[in-house]
């Protein structure tokens, strides 16, 4: 039984991510290679909030179309856009308008013309069936109260033979109930 309703969870997450500020690149430096970070706008690096490196394992090829579920300020969307090149396309999807706005600034700053950003829910991805070659996501699935629905939507938008590379946090042993009930834990 979830500790938060879907509506409450979205409200908490939108507020937390909409207001988040970061003054350093500590998270990004623990995850990404220095060479990767040097290519990106500092704002996208400072606002990296992922927990792994899904792009590293996605084996992206030039010309592919990539969807980044919960793109945040855009670090993985930018890396995907660079990897697929001008013949490919990267789509960043996020439900938090402030994050989409930040990601858009970073795309513009990097001068990428093959990246598109969309506001929307990963439980109802606003893209046609079979339109995506690769879905990536970084530390976002755990934010959803309907993970099965998110994965079903991921399956729907992928073309047959399409790939997914998803980083997330999992517990190996139950956490105390006080933690699970905490809005701060939910948003992280």
């Amino acid at each position, binding site marked *: 039984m979830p500790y938060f309703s879907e509506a409450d969870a979205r409200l908490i997450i939108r507020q937390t991510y909409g207001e988040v500020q970061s003054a350093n690149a500590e998270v990004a430096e623990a995850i990404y290679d220095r060479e990767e970070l040097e290519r990106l706008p500092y704002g996208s690096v400072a606002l990296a909030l992922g927990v792994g490196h899904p792009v590293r394992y996605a084996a992206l090829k030039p010309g592919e179309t990539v969807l980044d579920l919960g793109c945040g300020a855009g670090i993985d969307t930018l890396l995907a856009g660079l990897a697929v090149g001008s013949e490919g396309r990267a789509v960043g999807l996020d439900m938090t308008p402030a994050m989409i706005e930040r990601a858009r600034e970073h795309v513009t700053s990097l001068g990428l013309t093959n990246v598109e950003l969309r506001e929307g829910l990963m439980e109802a991805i606003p893209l046609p069936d079979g339109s995506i070659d690769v879905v990536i996501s970084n530390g976002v699935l755990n934010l959803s109260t309907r993970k099965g629905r998110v994965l079903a939507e991921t399956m729907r938008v992928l073309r047959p033979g399409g790939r997914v590379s998803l980083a997330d946090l*999992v517990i190996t042993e139950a956490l105390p109930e006080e933690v699970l009930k905490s809005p701060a834990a939910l948003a992280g």
Partner: protein
Amino acid sequence: MEPVLLKKFFNAGFEEIRVVDRKPFGLAELARYPLFAPEFLDFLRKVVPSHRHEELVYSIVVTGRKPEKGGEEDG
């Protein structure tokens, strides 16, 4: 939990499901994130047994593939 997550991938119809990266994620890692206030980290230090502070959760990367034909089920 990891097996639950992998089962959701399976139920969604993915094949070739693999955990390609797996790292412990403790309080020190959480402290890097601006999402967590110091008060929340202090709260975790108090309520989570100390032997779990370095391995509170795991960061994993899961990969999978949509079958060439079919495979669309809701998980």
